[in-house]
């Protein structure tokens, strides 16, 4: 019996193996692209109900970014909003029979965490410059450089492990209960899984904001203490 944590390729495109998370992610991408293209084709100043929902979603993402990062949300809206929407839909995709959520596999969570890691570095360098960003690792003293480097890696690792553990455990619990009990018994666990998926999506997006915001604000705080002008993020 193969481990459920091991991905088996469904098919190959050339030398590239295509696994189920990739396939489900493509499906999610296509669905989101079509919905967004259709939904935003008829935007008006007097919004319909669906447009109001979309505006509420965008306003929520903007509020999340603004509250967490204390910065203008336009620059981070696409990244944070995409992470929130994708993780939420990926987590809830387990409701479709036969679909295993992509976030229940380590590769997808690692990809998301890697993107957040790279975004943290990108926005930190963009806001503070390369030297300024690197100097943040020496705060409050150079002795802290190893610890800060380790912190960058471990918090990214914790990000992916948290999402992976929660979603994977939910899938396992439902699978185990379904194999042990009848057809309707897993439903409460599935409902709980929905709540867990929403909470994990929100936590992942908030932590992404926190990490990026920390990369920006730490440098600005150190520059203020040095008497230098802060760079606009």
């Amino acid at each position: 019996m193969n481990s459920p944590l091991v991905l088996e390729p469904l098919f190959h495109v050339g030398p590239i193996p295509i696994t189920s998370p990739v396939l489900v992610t493509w499906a999610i991408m296509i669905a989101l692209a079509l919905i967004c293209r259709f939904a935003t084709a008829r935007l008006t100043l007097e919004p319909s109900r669906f447009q109001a929902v979309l505006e509420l979603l965008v306003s929520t993402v903007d509020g999340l970014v603004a509250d967490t990062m204390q910065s203008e949300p336009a620059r981070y809206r696409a990244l944070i909003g995409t992470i929130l929407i994708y993780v939420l839909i990926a987590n809830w995709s387990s409701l479709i029979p036969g679909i295993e959520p992509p976030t229940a596999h380590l590769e997808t969570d690692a990809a998301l965490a890697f993107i957040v890691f790279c975004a943290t570095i990108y926005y930190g360098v963009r806001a503070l410059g390369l030297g300024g960003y690197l100097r943040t690792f020496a705060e409050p003293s150079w002795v802290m450089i190893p610890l800060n480097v380790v912190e960058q890696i471990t918090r990214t690792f914790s990000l992916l492990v948290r999402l992976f553990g929660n979603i994977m455990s939910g899938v396992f619990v439902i699978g185990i209960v379904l194999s042990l009990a009848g057809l309707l018994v897993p439903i409460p666990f599935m409902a709980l899984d929905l709540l867990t998926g929403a909470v994990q999506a929100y936590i992942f997006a908030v932590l992404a904001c926190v990490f990026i915001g920390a990369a920006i604000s730490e440098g600005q705080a150190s520059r203020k203490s040095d008497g230098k002008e802060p760079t606009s993020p």
Partner: protein
Amino acid sequence: MQIDWWTLGLQTANVLVLVWILGRFLFRPVAGMIEQRRVLASKALDDARVAQAAAEAARAEAERTTADLARSRADALKKAAQEAEAEKQGIIAAARTEAERVREAAKADIARARADEAAAARGRASALALDIADKLLSRLPEQARIDGFIPGLAEGLAALPDEIRAGLGADGHPVRLKAARALSDAEVNACREQLSRALGRPVEIACETDPALIAGLELDMPHAAVRNSLRADLDRVAGALAKGSKAGAPGSNGSATP
């Protein structure tokens, strides 16, 4: 447990592509619409502020106009009150003048009425006196109505100026002698004698009867007259009474001397 690096790479690319898709087709247009609505709302608010400022200015102007109107109204009322007071004073003055005029006219009417009443009273007194005198004379003999008045007539004639006396009866015309009753021949002769003596030359007389004389004689000449009759005496008394009443001294008829 092992990591499928191909899946990791593909998922990373997938998420990045999804970031672009959602950013391009969801977040940008929706955020743009929100921003557009915010701009329109801000513009509407600005327009509302401008309109409010204009309304405030209009209200201030209206209040200023109202204050000006109130001030003008107060001034107009004050002016109207002054004009009304002036007109009132004018009306009062005119009324006083009219009242004074009416009072003066009433005074004049009263005085005239009093004068008329006095004249009427005098007339009645004269009539009464004539009646009394007539009744008294009726108790005397008829001769007394003439005899006692002939000397007085001669004295009156003698008192006339010389030129008048010289012209009396000089052109051959007889002297007109009026008597209270028809004279007898003796009385005519007596009169002729007395008058001739007074004139210093003989004179002819033409006798006329005038009962209004009551008693006595009168001479009528073109430019003079000699009255020595009871009627003339009563007229003089009445004239004296009238003069006394005009002078505000009633009861002066006893002082008149015939």
